């Protein structure tokens, strides 16, 4: 956790406490925030991409086959994707079940 909490010597800081590792927030597992998880039924999916384009957490990424991959590492479980899926192909299920 040392890295995550930013504990380091003042001598190691970049100029003006800038961060010079672009996008390293991607190390953070915001999936821990989730109590409900979206589960995609690829049988129902029509590859419309609304889950991808409407996700505030960049959880979905396009795949070569046109479907969208879901990354639980980041998913906070907001449920927008399930609510907006025109085919009800995404279901929110309780974590731990």
């Amino acid at each position, binding site marked *: 956790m040392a890295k*995550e909490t930013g504990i380091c010597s003042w001598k190691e800081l970049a100029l003006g406490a800038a961060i010079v590792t672009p996008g390293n927030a991607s190390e953070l597992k915001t999936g821990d925030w989730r109590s409900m998880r979206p589960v995609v039924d690829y049988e129902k999916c029509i590859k419309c991409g609304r889950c991808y384009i409407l996700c505030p957490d960049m959880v979905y990424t396009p795949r070569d086959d046109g479907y969208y991959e879901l990354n639980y590492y980041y998913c906070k479980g907001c449920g927008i994707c399930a609510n907006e899926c025109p085919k009800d192909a995404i279901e929110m299920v309780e974590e731990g079940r």
Partner: protein
Amino acid sequence: MSTAAEALKDFKGFSMKNIPEFEPISPGHRACQGCVEMLGLRLALKALGKNVIVASATGCMEIVTSPYPQTAWRVPWIHVAFENAAAVISGVEAAYKALARKGKIENKNVVFVGYGGDGGTADIGLQALSGALERGHNIVYLCLDNEAYMNTGIQRSSSTPYGAMTTTSPPGKKSIGQATWKKNLPAIAAAHGIPYVATASPAYPIDLMNKVKKAALVPGPAYVHIFAVCPTGWRHDSNIAIEVAKMAVATNVFPLYEVIDGKWILSRKNPKPKPVKEYLKLQRRFRHLTDEEIAKIQARVDQEWRALLERCGVTEETGEKEKGESE
């Protein structure tokens, strides 16, 4: 042909088939569940790609993307203070202009983006924004409007709608909540006579991305006002955030339009607007409102919609069928 129209004459918009894959903001950011402000920012920056420099006002989008030592930013980003994102990005733009002219750097047609929330734009940052727009810097300014100071705990701003409950506009025996009408910031931006102004909603992502792209293409300042639903502050479940945003458009509470070279253009005609009540009832920030108050809000929304139609030169009768997106 005037400047913006000239720059946009061959404009090719996005569709779901050609969304750029690059995410300028990485996942792992700390925005709330269902944060539509983050979604709006994500979509706006996706439309612009890697060749941008971003200046952020203090606010939710600053604090959730940059707590040391992690940054969600994959593009160059600077935060200085609350009220000055427009001034900071003015300086960045001017520096690039001077350095490129003097041959000190290559001219790479970087897009310069400043953004702030409604507080950082409509209240404390209005002067810096007005200055930047008036001076004609080639910048894109995004206002991510979640209608209150959400970062500090949901205090009212001048962009908070009438009747809304916030922590500094609490309803009570002598208060209906926010006692003033929402400041019309896009109209204020348009009054500067800048080449491009638009309103956009993440509920219409392609429309939003296209507008931001247009904002970047026009020479000079451009302003895009983005409706940023905030489940935390608006008191509704996060999963309906996009539904709320769509309802804001469907009820004419947040109409979508562009102002190109001073010409007002409605993005979505809405011949059968839904009652404002449908929008209000989704959010607990309005739940204390009486039917009488709701009627008052309805009247105001109708009046503003008519004024907008007039500006756009459209009559209600000729309003065409609602235009769908390719989504």
